[in-house]
C-alpha cells in the first residue's frame, strides 16, 4: 500500500454564515477502516462532500495521496480512486447482479466499445470475486429487482468496488436493514478495508462496535473525540453531546 491516505487539516466550510465544518482535522491511513459518528448536523455529510469535491472549504487542507482535493473536479476525484456510496441504493433492477457489476467494471465507456465488449476471463473472475465479497455470488444471475433492501445495498457497494477505489466513503449503510443484514454488512466492510481505506458514517452504535475500528466523533463541525468505541463512549464530552441524550 502506497500513498499517505486521506489527510484533512483545519477544514472549514461556511454556508450562509453557518459553520458546517469548523477546523476539522482527520487522518485516515491507507487500508484503514474508520467510523465517523455524531449527532445530526455535526457535519458528517459535509465532510464527505469536501472529500468528493462537491463542496469547497473556505480554508484548510484536504489531500488524498498528496493530491489537493479542494482544487479538483468531482469526476477527477472519482478517477483518483475515491468512491462514494450514497444512502439510497440505486441499482439497475432489469439487469442481473452480474450485469450490474459488469457495467461498473473499469472498461471503455463509449457506445462502440460497449457493442464490441467481450467479457474476458480476467473480467469475469473480477466480477465473480466481487460478487463473492459482497455475499451475492449465489444471486449473480438474478435480476437486481428481486434483491432485498440489504442485498441491494451490498450490490451497490460491490459496484463501487468494481471501480477499484483506494478510498471508499459509505454513508449510513445499515439504515433500514435487519439485524442479520447489519451484521453481514459489518463483516463485508471489515473485509473490504485492508486493500483500501474505508470511511463509514453511521448512527447505529451497535453496528459501529461490530466494525471494531477506530471511531471519530464529530460535533458542530469539528472533531470531538477519537479512539476505540469504548474510549469514545467513556469520554464525558461525547456522553454529553451525543450518547447521553
Amino acid at each position: 500500500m502506497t500513498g499517505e491516505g486521506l489527510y484533512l487539516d483545519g477544514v472549514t466550510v461556511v454556508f450562509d454564515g453557518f459553520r458546517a465544518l469548523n477546523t476539522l482535522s482527520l487522518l485516515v491511513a491507507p487500508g484503514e477502516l474508520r467510523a465517523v459518528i455524531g449527532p445530526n448536523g455535526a457535519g458528517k455529510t459535509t465532510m464527505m462532500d469536501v472529500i468528493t469535491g462537491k463542496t469547497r472549504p473556505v480554508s484548510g487542507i484536504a489531500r488524498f495521496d498528496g493530491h489537493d482535493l479542494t482544487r479538483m473536479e468531482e469526476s477527477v476525484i472519482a478517477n483518483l480512486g475515491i468512491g462514494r456510496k450514497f444512502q439510497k441504493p440505486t441499482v439497475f433492477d432489469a439487469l442481473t447482479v452480474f450485469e450490474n457489476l459488469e457495467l461498473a467494471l473499469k472498461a471503455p465507456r463509449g457506445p462502440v466499445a460497449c457493442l464490441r465488449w467481450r467479457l474476458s476471463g480476467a473480467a469475469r473472475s473480477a466480477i465473480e470475486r466481487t460478487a463473492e465479497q459482497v455475499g451475492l455470488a449465489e444471486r449473480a444471475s438474478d435480476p437486481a429487482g428481486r434483491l432485498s433492501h440489504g442485498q441491494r445495498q451490498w450490490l451497490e457497494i460491490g459496484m463501487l468496488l468494481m471501480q477499484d477505489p483506494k478510498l471508499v466513503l459509505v454513508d449510513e449503510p445499515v439504515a433500514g436493514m435487519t439485524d442479520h443484514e447489519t451484521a453481514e454488512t459489518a463483516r463485508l466492510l471489515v473485509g473490504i478495508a485492508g486493500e483500501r481505506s474505508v470511511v463509514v458514517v453511521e448512527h447505529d452504535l451497535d453496528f459501529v462496535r461490530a466494525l471494531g475500528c477506530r471511531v471519530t466523533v464529530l460535533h458542530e463541525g469539528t472533531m470531538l473525540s477519537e479512539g476505540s468505541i469504548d474510549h469514545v463512549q467513556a469520554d464525558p464530552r461525547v456522553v454529553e453531546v451525543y450518547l447521553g441524550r
Partner: protein
Amino acid sequence: MRRFLLPGIVALLALLPLLNLLPEGHPIRVSDFVVSVAGKWLCYAILALALDLAWGYAGILSLGHGAFFALGGYAIGMHLMRLIGPRGTYGHPVLPDFMVFLGYQELPWFWWGFGHFPFALLMALLVPGLLAFAVGYLAFRSRITGVYLSIITQAMTYALMLAFFRNDMGFGGNNGFTDFKELVGMPLNTPFARSVLYFAALAALVGCFLLSAAMTRTKFGRVLAAIRDAESRVRFLGYDTLRHKLFVFVLSAMMAGLAGALYVPLVGIINPGEFSPANSIEAVVWVAFGGRGTLVGAVLGAFSVNALKTWLTSFAPDLWLIVLGVLFIAVPLLMPRGLVGMLRR
C-alpha cells in the same frame, strides 16, 4: 419449441407470395390483396422494431418516428418520380408532372442525384439519420427526457407535415408522389414486382431483427436498459449517456427510413399524410400492444394491430381513431408488458 417459432413464422411469410402464383381459383391460392397488405405490414414491423430499440430499450419515447419513415419514403419516391421520365402527363423529359404544372424551369438542386437508385437508398437512410442526430443531440444534451421529449418529436413530425404540404417545398405538396412506373428496371404493379418487393421487405425485417437482437444482447444493450431505468446513475458510473442515446436514436431513425423506402414502392404513393402525428402514435401502440423491450413483441404488435385495423376499417372506418385512442390508454393500464408479457406468463 420456441427455437422454431421465429424461423417458422418467417417460412410462413415467405410462402405467401409463392401461394399467390397458384392459378386463380386454387383452394390455397393467396390473393393479390393479401400479398400487398402483408407486404405493408412487413414494413410497419420494421418501423415497430426501430421504435422498440429507442423506446423499449433506451426509454426514448418518440412520438415522431413516422417522420423518419416518411422521409425514407420520400427519398425513394423522388427516385421513382425521376424514373417516370417523359412518360408523365406533360411528357417533360426531366421534370416530374407537378414541377411542370408549377412552372419549374429546371430540377431543384436537392433533387440532384436522385436519378440513381443507390443514391436514393443512401438518402433514405442518411436524411432520417441526420434529422435524428440533430434533434437528438439538442434534446439529449439539454437532458430533455420523458414526456417533454415525446412532445418535441411529435412537434417535429407535425412541422414536417405542414412543410411538405406546401407546394413550393418542391415535393409535390398535397398530392405527394404517385403514378410510379418502374424500379431498378422492373415494372411496378405486376405480381412479379409485388413478390420482389415483398421479399425485399421480408429480408429487411429479418436483417433488422437479427441486428437488433444481436445489439441488445451486448453490453451496449445493457447500458441502454440501465439508462432507461436510472439515467443519472449510469452517468455517475462514468458513461456519457448522451452518446449512447444518440447512437441508438440515429440507428433507429435509419431503420425507420429503410421501412419507409420499402413501403412506398409497394403502395405506389407517398404524400404528406405519412407525417401525420396519428401515424407515429399508431406505431407506439403497435409496440406497446406487442410488448416493448422484447423486439418480437414489436413485430407481433405491428401485425396484430394492423390486422385489427384492416378488419375494422373494412366496415367501420370512422371507428378506427377511437379504437386507437382506447388502445393507447388501455394497453399500458391493462397489459403493461403487452402480448409477449401475457404469453410468457
